[in-house]
């Protein structure tokens, strides 16, 4: 980690954004969060388009913002390359004019020539953006943002405007680009797979606050808080009602632990691929199979714990499957059980309500929707 950092507070009507993260000298930082969590606002604040109330932004050893010493660089001065959700290309200019827009006139021709080659846009230089495919548009947007040689690259959900069929391919392209790029990159996303594949570091943003920040693997494997786990797609969450000597209990049953459970543990989480399916009675928890979803490479077994809590297990496509309706035991390897605490300002009662919503209410099991 360098000395670079983002540390800002920002208020808009009822919304408050409060983020403090250290930036790496290179590599991709992904900010994940539900819509409305403040992801895009943060990106715009870093670019200087939205103004922050207080805070400091330091990139490449230069202060872009430092409210204490009265520094607040205009977007024009921040040396930032921004790629917008729908790319926001200049529709009335050619590809070459788009790419060269941010480059001083005397170096423009040379830079445009280099970047159109790098991004395989040769032959398209005289086209308008409306004549390009989705992938070409993305490459123009990236080339345009990188042309002025920025100190930081900002990407706002770069693949969300792209047709699903193209997304996987463009993601691979982005991955290839990032591997060769020295510019530190901040990527905003609500797509877990995108973040997982592209990012070196992940921050989880909920309600304008960073709930978790670390390397991609750390964060995905150990979300830390319940809210972060939900954002990161954890669906097997067991609310903890009580804990005794080396065991936790809930209405779903009792699990023995290797060590004492922390008093702060609100839920236990486990990824669906880490759970094994055993004969009835032989597992750590008893469950009933509700249905099986075919997801291509994997099958997802939807189960139901004794208190009705839904529980998901993922098997490889070639593994044998239990029959829907049959009782099974679930093996939960202790090393994969992750304790989760209440996040940032969440009080236990809220958490319990959250638990009820998740497990008692909408997702009640078996399927509560029945049309007569």
């Amino acid at each position: 980690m360098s000395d670079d950092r983002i540390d800002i507070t920002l208020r808009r009507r009822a919304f408050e954004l409060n983020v403090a993260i250290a930036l790496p000298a290179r590599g991709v930082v992904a900010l994940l969060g539900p819509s409305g969590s403040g992801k895009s606002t943060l990106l715009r604040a870093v670019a200087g388009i939205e103004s922050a109330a207080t805070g400091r932004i330091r990139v490449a050893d230069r202060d872009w913002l430092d409210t204490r010493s009265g520094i607040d660089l205009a977007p024009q001065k921040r040396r930032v390359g921004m790629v917008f959700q729908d790319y926001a290309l200049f529709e009335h200019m050619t590809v070459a004019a788009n790419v060269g827009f941010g480059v001083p006139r005397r170096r423009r021709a040379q830079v445009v020539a280099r970047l159109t080659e790098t991004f395989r846009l040769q032959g398209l230089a005289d086209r308008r953006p409306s004549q390009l495919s989705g992938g070409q548009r993305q490459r123009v947007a990236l080339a345009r943002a990188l042309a002025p040689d920025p100190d930081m690259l900002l990407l706002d959900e770069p693949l969300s405007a792209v047709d699903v069929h193209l997304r996987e391919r463009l993601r691979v392209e982005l991955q290839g680009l990032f591997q060769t790029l020295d510019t530190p990159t901040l990527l905003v996303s609500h797509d877990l797979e995108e973040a997982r594949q592209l990012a070196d570091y992940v921050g989880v943003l909920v309600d304008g606050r960073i709930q978790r920040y670390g390397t991609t693997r750390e964060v995905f494997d150990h979300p830390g808080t319940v809210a972060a786990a939900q954002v990161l797609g954890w669906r097997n969450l067991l609310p903890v009602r009580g804990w005794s000597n080396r065991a936790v209990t809930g209405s779903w049953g009792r699990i023995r632990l290797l060590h004492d459970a922390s008093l702060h543990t609100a839920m236990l989480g486990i990824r669906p691929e880490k759970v094994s399916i055993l004969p009835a009675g032989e597992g750590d928890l008893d469950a009933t199979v509700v249905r099986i979803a075919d997801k291509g490479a994997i099958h997802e077994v939807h189960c139901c714990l004794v208190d009705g809590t839904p529980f998901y297990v993922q098997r490889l496509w070639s593994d044998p499957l239990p029959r829907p309706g049959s009782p099974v035991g679930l093996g939960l390897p202790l090393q994969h059980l992750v304790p989760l605490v209440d996040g940032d300002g969440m009080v236990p009662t809220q958490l319990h309500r959250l638990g009820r919503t998740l497990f008692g209410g909408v997702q009640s099991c078996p399927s509560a929707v029945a049309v007569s």
Partner: protein
Amino acid sequence: MAVDAWHTAVLTVQLAAVTVLLLLLVGTPLAWWLATTRRRWKVPVEAVTALPLVLPPTVLGFYLLLFLGPKGPAGELSIRWFGSPLTFTFSGLVIASCVYSLPFVVQPLQAAFEGIDKRAVEAAWSLGASRVRTFVQVIVPQARRGFVTALVLGFAHTLGEFGVVLMVGGNIPGETQVLSIAIYERVEMLDYAGAHGLSLALLLFSFLVLSLVYLTNRRWSMGAHGG
């Protein structure tokens, strides 16, 4: 009579051209401010800008008469510098026309500015483009439709003014008599043939202008849709 009508037509076109030019200069920054501001001031300013749309031309004309006349602030200045008040002169007519046609220039521009892709503007900023360069190279090309509409409507509406001009400019042939007043005069004089010729010309011109505006808008919006 024919020469008379020709002089009147030339004068009318001159008035419309000068007015529209001045209005584009004044109206562009005003429309941009209205399109982007979030201040409380926006509503009263918008209302004042739209006043000439609903205000009786006579009310407008009356206040302009007071403002530009020998005892009004603008009139006094004019007397001090040029020796005569602004009423019943071409300059007075231009000022009156600008007020009268203001909404026809500001409103299409404001709508166009409100419709442009704000992200493209922000992209230009983050690429280091100054606000002036962004305006010229990114905003104006996107708002070109609004500029054409403003130009055409402002011009056509100035051609058609009557009440304000009658009060501020009077009816001096070759000096302040514009087409709309010439028609009124002919009707008053029961010269229906003369009124007919002028009316038909203006009717056709107005219809063509509006068809052009709507056709262009339609083409462009279809183009944007298809592309």
